[in-house]
Every structure is written in C-alpha cells, then in structure tokens.
C-alpha cells in the first residue's frame, strides 16, 4: 500500500511536485500517468526515498518515507528511469550483489537470482557484461533487480521503455500477475499502456494530481471534453488531453 499526502518537492525555484496526494492499493496495477516533466519521476524518487520531500509525506508498505526510509527501502523494488546499471559487472554478478545488499539470506541469493533471471528471460545473457547489453536487456535487468527479494511494493518508472513489442507484452502480463498480491505503482506517459495494464490511475500534470480513479471512470468524467482538432478521440485520451491542458504549468525541474 502507498499513501501519499501533500508531497511537495522543489528544485531551486521550480516546484516539481506540488501537494501530491493519492493512494495505491494492492490487487491492481496503479498507473502514474502524465506528460513529460509532470513530476512523475520526482514523485517516484520521493517514494523510493532517493529524494526527501520539501513538505508532506508518504507511507509505503506501512512506513513513513521521511521517518523510516531504511524500512521503506527494505520493502520496495524500485526501477529508476532508464534503469541505470553498472556496465562493468556481469548480469548474474550484479543481481547477486543486489540480492546480498537487499539482505536476502545466504541460501536464498542463488534461488532469488535464478527466479528473477527466469521471470525476465535473462538466462541467455546472465554471463554477459551489462555494458555490452542492448537497452532493452538492461531494462529487463533493472526489472529483475526490482523483483529480487519479492518486495510487497514495486515502484517502476517507465518499465516498458526500450523494450520490443514482445517483451512489452510479457512485462505487462508480469505486472498484472505481480499486482495480485503486491502494490504495483507504474509511472508511464503511454496512454495505451495505462489503459491495458492499469486498474487504477493517478494522472498528474504540472506537478499536481489532476485526476484519480479507474481508466473508465476518468474517461467517463471527461466524455464531453474537446478531443483536439475535431478528431474522434478515444475516451481516456480525450480525458488525458483535457486534464494535461488544464494542469497548469509543467514543472521541468530535475535533480
């Protein structure tokens, strides 16, 4: 479970995240949808405790991100934007190191790494250097890392970016499967992904939450909104365009 209450974050004079509040529960994939620069990555970094909020707080898996960041980190699997990984390590070396750092017991490391490799179909590249892998493979290694230790909360920043269509399909299936027992919070700017994968949506624009609900609820709320240049625009896209346009200024701030 994730409960964000009034989260704010500034970069210099730019407020990148402005009073963001939402709840993400287990059982469905919660999509964090917004245009580029809307504050999605910053919000995920706040939830993952990489950044500290300027105001507000969030409770992730029962622990406050400000008061108990270490407890939060023990309970999350986090895929940062673009899956940054050390190129000098082999895939299996990296995952083993991450499993140890995440406190997985000595006997469980091999099993956890094996499962993660299998889930993300990485067996064929486990001995390869990460630096020699394609971006798609690196993304999958990042996802495998997030799944290590079976964390109750997954925070995934654009998890299907850089993947080929077949891998996108597999990852979407995996997310659906994982969300049955976990809180899966996925940042995306892809409407198709949000519609197909997410059972709940939090839409942000200009650093603020502008809508929450199921995709169908959000689409029906904005059924009468203009779709843009008189074209026939599907429901959620119409709603998204209207919400993004009305979301005020777009915070471009980045750490």
């Amino acid at each position, binding site marked *: 479970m994730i409960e964000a209450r009034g989260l704010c974050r500034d970069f210099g004079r730019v407020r990148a995240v402005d009073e963001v509040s939402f709840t993400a529960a287990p059982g469905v994939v919660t999509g964090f949808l917004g245009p580029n620069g809307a504050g999605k990555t910053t919000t995920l*970094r706040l939830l*993952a*405790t*990489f*950044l*500290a909020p300027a105001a507000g707080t969030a409770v992730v898996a029962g622990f406050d991100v400000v008061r108990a960041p*270490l407890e939060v*980190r*023990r309970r*999350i699997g*986090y895929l*940062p934007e*673009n899956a*940054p*990984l*050390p*190129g*000098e*390590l082999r895939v299996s*070396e990296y995952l083993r*190191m*991450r499993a*140890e*750092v*995440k*406190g997985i017991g*000595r006997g469980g490391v091999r099993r956890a790494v094996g499962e993660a490799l299998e889930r993300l179909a990485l067996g064929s590249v486990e001995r390869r250097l990460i630096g020699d892998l394609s971006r798609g493979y690196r993304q999958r290694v*990042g996802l495998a*890392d997030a799944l290590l230790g079976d964390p109750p909360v997954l925070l995934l920043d654009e998890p299907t970016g850089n993947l080929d269509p077949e891998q996108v399909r597999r990852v979407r299936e995996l997310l659906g499967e994982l969300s049955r027992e976990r809180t899966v919070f996925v940042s995306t700017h892809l409407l198709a992904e949000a519609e197909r994968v997410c059972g709940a949506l939090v839409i942000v624009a200009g650093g603020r939450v502008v809508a929450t609900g199921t995709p169908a609820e959000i689409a029906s709320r904005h059924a009468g909104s203009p779709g843009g240049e008189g074209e026939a625009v599907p429901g959620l896209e119409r709603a998204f365009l209207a919400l993004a346009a009305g979301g005020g200024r777009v915070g471009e701030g980045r750490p």
Partner: protein
Amino acid sequence: MRIFRALLRRELLAIWTSPTAWVVLGTFLLLSGIYFYEILWVLSRPAAPYGTPMATFFGGSLLSFVPLVLFVAAITMRSFAEEHHAGTLEPLLTAPVTANQVVAAKYAGAYLFYLALWVPTAVYPLLLWRHADPAWGPILAGYLGMALFGAALTALGVLASALARRQIVAAILAFGFGGGWLLAGLGGSLLPGGSTAGRVLRHVSPFEMMDRFRVGLVDSRDVVLCVSVAAAALLWTRVVLDLRRSS
C-alpha cells in the same frame, strides 16, 4: 557486515576493472622504480649526501608527494561522481543500505587500492636486504606513514567525488585538497619559526610528518592528524549525501 562486504566487493570490481586503475598502478610503479633507481645511484656515489635509500624513498622530496596526490585523485574521482553521472547512485541509495555503509565501502575500496599500489614496492627493501643490512624499523615506519597519509588523502578524494557531479571535477577538487595540504606544509617551512601560523602549519605539514616516520619515529600526533582528517572528510561526505537528498 554482509551488506558492507557486498558493497565493498562491487566497489573493488568497479575499481579494478577500470582502465584508470591500471594506468595509475603502472605509472606509480614506473615512477617509483625510477625514483628508487635514482636514489641508489645518487647515494652510491663517493660524495653522496648522508641518507639511507628507503628513508629518501618515503617522501625525501616534494616530487614524491605531488604524484601521490595526483594518483589518489585519479583513484577516488569515480567513487561518487561517476555513479552520479551514470545514474547508478539512485539504485544504490534506494537499496536497504545506510549512507554510512555506502561511504565506508567506497572509502575502503579506494583505500585498499591505494595500499595495493605500495605492495610491489616491498621489492626495494628486499633488494637492499640481499646486499646490505637495512634497518627495518624506519622502513616499516615509512610504510606506516605513507599508509596514514594515504588514508587521509583518500578520504579527501572521496569527499571531493561526493561534491562533484563529474569525474574530472572530482579529480581537480581532490588534487586541490591534497595540494592545499602540501602548500600548507610548504608555508610552514617558509614562515618564521617563532610565528604562531608557522608553528600551526608545521604541525600539519605532511613533509615534517614524513620526516619523522622515515627515520622510524612514530609520533602519535601524526597518527591523530591523519586519522582526524580522514574521519572529518568521511563525515562531510555523509553530510553531502544527506544534503543532496534534501536539496
């Protein structure tokens, strides 16, 4: 401890698989070999000044300190700056590890590499031992002095790397910290002996410190100085990481 070991192993792998490490190691051994050869050549002349080869080897001239500061800057520059630049600091700092564990592992990795630089130089006193009877006390004290000086320099380098977002900036900053320390030592020897500033600077002078170590004098003030500089630099590194998170 297991988490620290995993972080340290990752750090050592990153250091030893980087071309910079091998360039530093090769250049250090080449320069130290040439320097030792020159020392033997000068001291073996009939009109040679008084001195033992190893005592001269351990900081007998300014030229032996400056490359050392450069080498340490080259080793430590990647610690945090490269991770920041590559984005890999994010998965590292969102894993269930404390900032202290990360700082300690980065420092230990760089310091172990610094110590590894000195291991092959053990050949020099062994060579002397084959042909003469060197005093082992001053030699061991000289190595201890270099280890302590390196401990402080490495910590300053790690701090520089945490402050910078690019490796080159980190290296320049680390060289600035180390160079500043050397300049303070030089200032101490140039200022009048009775002045307060002169006395203070001589107390922290790496030259005077190594002058004591290389003759076999292990002064607790020197040990405290190096350990204090290292501890303060690592504490500030931790503060910089915390500030990065909230600013």
